[in-house]
């Protein structure tokens, strides 16, 4: 049964996965394949990362999650392999079913979370080569994200420079929980490298922040972890604004992926008030944070919030004031997937709907490169 939306659909968050570890290993530089095979510790780390799909820190924080691999239970390909590992099934369940014009791949396979940054960089190379060979080459509707070992800006920059000439890479991909807040100096060279190729930087739900997700210690339940990821997004936007990276890099574009959207409005109000009172501490931030955010940030819809009353929706969009920056995403194959034909309320104004469902993404990403 097709559920095609009446207009164009661009999906800004698809989590493709390799069918097995061996499938990615084939793309590792040869020297790294030998090293991983020889070192049990690296394999154990690798296995743990694989099991959690990059959504979790792997130290000191394990929870049973909602479903196997946090995926829709109907997304397991009938011919085997984990969810989103089989291109024909992904076409059937997602691209064809919903008439998706373009889909942006955001594989989260732990490249940035490796404590061994060089190992992470090799893994990033493998992920990017795998995306090209098994997804971009056979499927013209797909675009990819450049995976990098983002905790080492030099290694990350090298990988960006290595692949960015392939115009099918739509952005650089980081995770929202990092070792330091993303405005800090250690990440500046990464932003520089992305900008040299005019690439946005996508920052996605997940990651290992070297500690608990809350500023009050570890939660006990997965529900806390998943609700709590919105706090990580808020804090990172705060950092990027307050550290003045948009004054330093006026062309920088940031895409916030899989954080939901509603928290943006109160964050902007809060930051504006804080800036008005405390701007002496950050003289390099020369205008209202809300202006900076509306100029430099894009945000994907999923998991889209569901306000209880009909009037809350237009009020929310007005409060956020980013109708030209909100971009639809399904988050296929995860369990909190948003369906293109159902996620946005039907009463959203048609122009706004189309902007969200496809046109904002079309304006941001280089789909026709």
């Amino acid at each position: 049964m097709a559920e095609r939306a009446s207009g164009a659909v661009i999906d800004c968050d698809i989590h493709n996965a390799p069918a097995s570890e061996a499938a990615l290993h084939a793309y590792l530089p040869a020297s790294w394949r030998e090293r991983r095979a020889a070192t049990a510790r690296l394999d154990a780390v690798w296995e743990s990362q694989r099991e959690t799909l990059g959504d979790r820190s792997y130290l000191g924080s394990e929870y049973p999650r909602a479903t196997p691999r946090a995926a829709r239970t109907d997304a397991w390909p009938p011919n085997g392999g984990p969810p989103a590992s089989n291109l024909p099934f992904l076409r059937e369940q997602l691209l064809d079913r919903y008439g998706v014009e373009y889909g942006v791949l955001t594989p989260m396979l732990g490249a940035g979370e490796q404590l061994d940054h060089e190992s992470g960089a090799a893994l990033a190379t493998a992920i990017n080569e795998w995306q090209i060979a098994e997804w971009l080459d056979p499927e013209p509707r797909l675009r990819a994200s450049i995976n990098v070992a983002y905790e080492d800006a030099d290694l990350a920059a090298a990988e960006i420079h290595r692949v960015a000439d392939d115009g099918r890479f739509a952005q650089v991909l980081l995770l929202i929980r990092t070792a330091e807040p993303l405005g800090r100096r250690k990440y500046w060279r990464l932003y520089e490298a992305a900008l040299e190729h005019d690439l946005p930087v996508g920052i996605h739900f997940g990651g290992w922040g070297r500690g608990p997700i809350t500023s009050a210690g570890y939660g006990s339940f997965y529900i806390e972890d998943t609700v709590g990821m919105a706090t990580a997004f808020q804090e990172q936007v705060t950092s990027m604004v307050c550290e003045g990276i948009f004054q330093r890099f006026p062309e920088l574009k940031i895409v916030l992926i899989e954080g939901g959207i509603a928290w943006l409005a109160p964050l902007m109000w809060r930051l504006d008030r804080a800036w008005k009172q405390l701007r002496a501490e950050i003289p390099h931030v020369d205008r209202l944070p809300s202006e900076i955010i509306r100029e430099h940030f894009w945000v994907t819809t999923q998991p889209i919030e569901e306000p209880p009353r009909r009037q809350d929706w237009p009020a929310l969009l007005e409060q956020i004031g980013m109708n030209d920056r909100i971009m639809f995403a399904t988050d296929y194959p995860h369990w909190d997937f948003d369906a293109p034909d159902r996620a946005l309320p039907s009463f959203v104004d048609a122009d706004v709907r189309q902007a969200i469902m496809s046109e904002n993404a079309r304006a941001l990403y280089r789909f026709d490169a």
Partner: protein
Amino acid sequence: MTEPLIDCEVQAVVQSIETLEPFLSSHWREVIATTQFKGPTDTPYPPALPTSRRPGLDDVDDRPPGATLASIRTQALDPLGTELGILTCAYGVESVRNPDAAAAIASAINDWLAADFLEPEARLRASISVPAQPAMAAEEIARVGADPRFVQVYLPVRSALPYGNRVWLPLLDAAVEHDLPLALHFGGSPGLPPTASGWPTYYVEEYADMATAFQSQLTSLIAEGAFDRFPGLRVVLAGSGFAWLPAWTWRFDKVWRGLRREVPWNTRSPSETVRDQVRVTLQPVDGPADPAALLTVIEQLGSDELLMFSSDFPRGHAEEGLDALPAGMPPDLRRAILSGNARAFYPRLGAGADG
């Protein structure tokens, strides 16, 4: 000023450990004298910032605003015609790792508040400071809890484990037994980074990031079933702002519908739980500057009973006192915020002029 007004947050400021020495034992006075122990020096309010000290407030008796009863009378209570003011004290007991020192300091704060503020000034009520060790916190609550002028338990919003975690049960138990709400307060120095991604560079980030601590604590208390285990548990968010609440609620409600199996003891949605058992002080107002837009946010909270007026004296905000309430607020809501909601929520304030 004729409107009844309850100020749910007036901050008593410990200028230095010397303020508390009269209330410490001879042993701890000797420790301080011979080690020059300064007590907790981490503060969520760097003293000279305009958010920490409202511009235009003078010293009183050569002491900073909030440090003396004279200041609180003349600078906080009198100008607003306050009927009742609830004292809080953001002195970082939780950062003192020696549990006995922490307990001694917490007791000293409570004895100082009682002697120097509550005794001479009938308009004042206070929050019980406690050490971060749950069993010892319960002891302090039991020690002080019989004094009806203490109306809540003060907890820093940043802690070593979120307050829904079962390690905190002795503290929650004691608070509920004494019919004392928990007040989660801006600040806290538990030794953990203020964000999910480590330590931010600037204070302005920490100031803004504190909202996420309140979000996380509420998430924990609800997920862990604290409000179901203790139907009498009440929680006040103090210094949290409130504009972030609708977005957080919508997210948590949505996720809960599909994940409720993980926390099957929850009989209510998160938003219902908040409406039933959580209240929020007014300052610092964190919503949009435009009054009509701010009224929209207040309306999106989904309940007229959530907000409770506070001055957050001596801290500085965009608007102070009654100016913090947006123009055009319906009179019933205004009355509820100014005093009605506090009267209804705090068991020890009760109905009537003097609680």
